[in-house]
């Protein structure tokens, strides 16, 4: 059995009286594609936000690559190797596609103000490397011909891809995708699926929140189901698909 990359222990979060997460514990193993599904409002995105430091959990916590994760610092999550995309795409709209990915390199590079002012050799070399790496990533997600377009002018599917490229630029160990197939047609979803398979093959663990049950079941090694903020089941797709509670959660009791 491979080692756990991420472990959530009894993560709880409530907003006022609403319990969005009730002691959710799960573990994601290195190298797998892990699906997180559940009906609307089940707490999937809340779980994501807790994991990536946008929300501070009210209870429990995360262990990532053997070390506990600080709850209150989103930038630290990226630093440690957790990258994410957003359900309602959040790109830097007035920057070009290339610049968006270059921003993603921020956390793995270090040129400071003085480097920028004096344009010394190390800074120039680093800048060139950032640009090269960003181009490579655009190529990887197959939108390199849109490199110089403003992000907001990209098509919906290309924006999704760009967001993934930007996340990959941070060299994540764990890539968290929040409903990447939302709003996509059949062809686009098939292409996305290929992309995710490729990312996994290149050694990045993937956590996938998705509504498209077919995509999740076909793609994921293991799946967890959330309902009313609580974990219903965590198992391989074949088992999850047949679980009575899951069927109830999706079809309504």
């Amino acid at each position, binding site marked *: 059995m491979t080692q756990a990359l991420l472990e959530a222990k009894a993560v709880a979060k409530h907003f006022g009286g609403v319990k969005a997460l009730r002691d959710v514990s799960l573990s994601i193993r290195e190298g797998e594609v892990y699906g997180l599904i559940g009906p609307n409002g089940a707490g999937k995105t809340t779980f994501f936000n807790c994991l990536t430091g*946008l929300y501070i959990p009210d209870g429990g916590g995360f262990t990532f690559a053997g070390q506990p994760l600080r709850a209150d610092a*989103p930038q630290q999550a990226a630093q440690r190797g957790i990258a994410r995309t957003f359900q309602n795409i959040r790109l830097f709209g*007035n920057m070009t596609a290339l610049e968006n990915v270059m*921003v993603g390199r*921020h956390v793995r590079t270090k040129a*400071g103000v003085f480097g*920028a*002012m004096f344009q010394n050799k190390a800074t120039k070399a680093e800048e060139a490397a*950032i640009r090269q790496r960003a181009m490579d990533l655009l190529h990887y997600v197959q939108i390199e011909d849109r490199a110089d377009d403003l992000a907001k002018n990209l098509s919906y599917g290309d924006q999704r891809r760009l967001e993934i490229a930007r996340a990959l630029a941070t060299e994540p160990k764990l890539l968290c995708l929040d409903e990447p197939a939302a709003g996509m047609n059949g062809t686009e979803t098939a292409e996305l699926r290929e992309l995710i398979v490729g990312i996994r093959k290149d050694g990045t663990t993937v956590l996938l929140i998705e509504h498209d049950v077919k995509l999740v079941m076909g793609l994921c090694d293991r799946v967890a189901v959330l309902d009313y903020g609580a974990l219903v089941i965590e198992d391989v797709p074949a088992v999850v698909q047949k679980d009575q509670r899951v069927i109830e959660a999706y079809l309504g009791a």
Partner: protein
Amino acid sequence: MKNWLTPKSTAGIMLIAVALAALPFVVGMAGQAWVRILNFAILYVFLALGLNIVVGFAGLLDLGYIAFYAVGAYAWALLASPHFGLHWSIWAILPIGASCACIAGIVLGSPTLKLRGDYLAIVTLGFGEIVRIFLNNLNAPFNITNGPQGITLIDPVSFGGFKLSGFTPIFGFPVSGPQKYYFLLVALAILVIIINLRLQHSRIGRAWQAIREDEIAAKAVGIDTRNLKLLAFAMGASFGGIAGGIFAAMQGFVSPESFSLIESVMILAMVVLGGMGHIPGVILGAVLLTILPEALRYGVGPIQKLLFGKQLVDPESLRMLVFGLALVLVMRFKPAGLWPAPERKRELAEGAK
């Protein structure tokens, strides 16, 4: 990137250099007062580009920028005037002034930069007022700032024995104080332009733009938004401090009156009116907003006389009225500023469709 020094661009740069070198002498023919106004235009270019780092790059609304200018000005005034009997060298004072302003920026910025935009605006505005009130009143029980009277007889900038005040014959040609300051100011302005340009297209500059575009997404890719905002704030403050020092030396006199809120507002207006974040636009904004009120000062009176045969209204308030009107009209018809960055323009054009 390497071959930007084409014959054409070299010729262009030479031409601009010659024009810049000749400018104070051409303007000098109309009187030294105009050279002084020109100097202020360049000083404001410097200030506006400093504020551009804060507002244009990092997207932080700073309405108390003048406070840092004041810190720099008083640092110079106290360390190089008979007030305390100190006459330090520029190489000591400018760094001290810049550091004091920088520290003030960090002290103000670290607790407040997490506030949302408009709250930050009022906090910085309040800070500017606090600084001004202290400058006004720190003459008792110990006389530090000499209160509302301000500090006089401040040393001019001098390099070794070469003073920038008064006439100096150069090649038998008398060069005035303002004309000498002009060259110092142009050098400083070019420096800040280069810094702005280089920062904009750097790792840091991209991170600032990312924060401005979407702070949450910026955090998600690992940008330490708090530290980067603080960095922008502190850098802007340091530039303010340097400008303040030069201002004190050039005027020979400082008083709290020069550092009122309207000054902060003016510098912000230069940045926004010119085209926020776009360096040529900011330069244009600074030059226009310095020259316009002065031109109005000289133009409003005679024009009234010409039209009505006498002074109908106080020229001073008419001049400010026209100025206010100009602000409103520019914003009405050029909401992104007179000379916005190309992508901003595209954005607005698309919005209009």
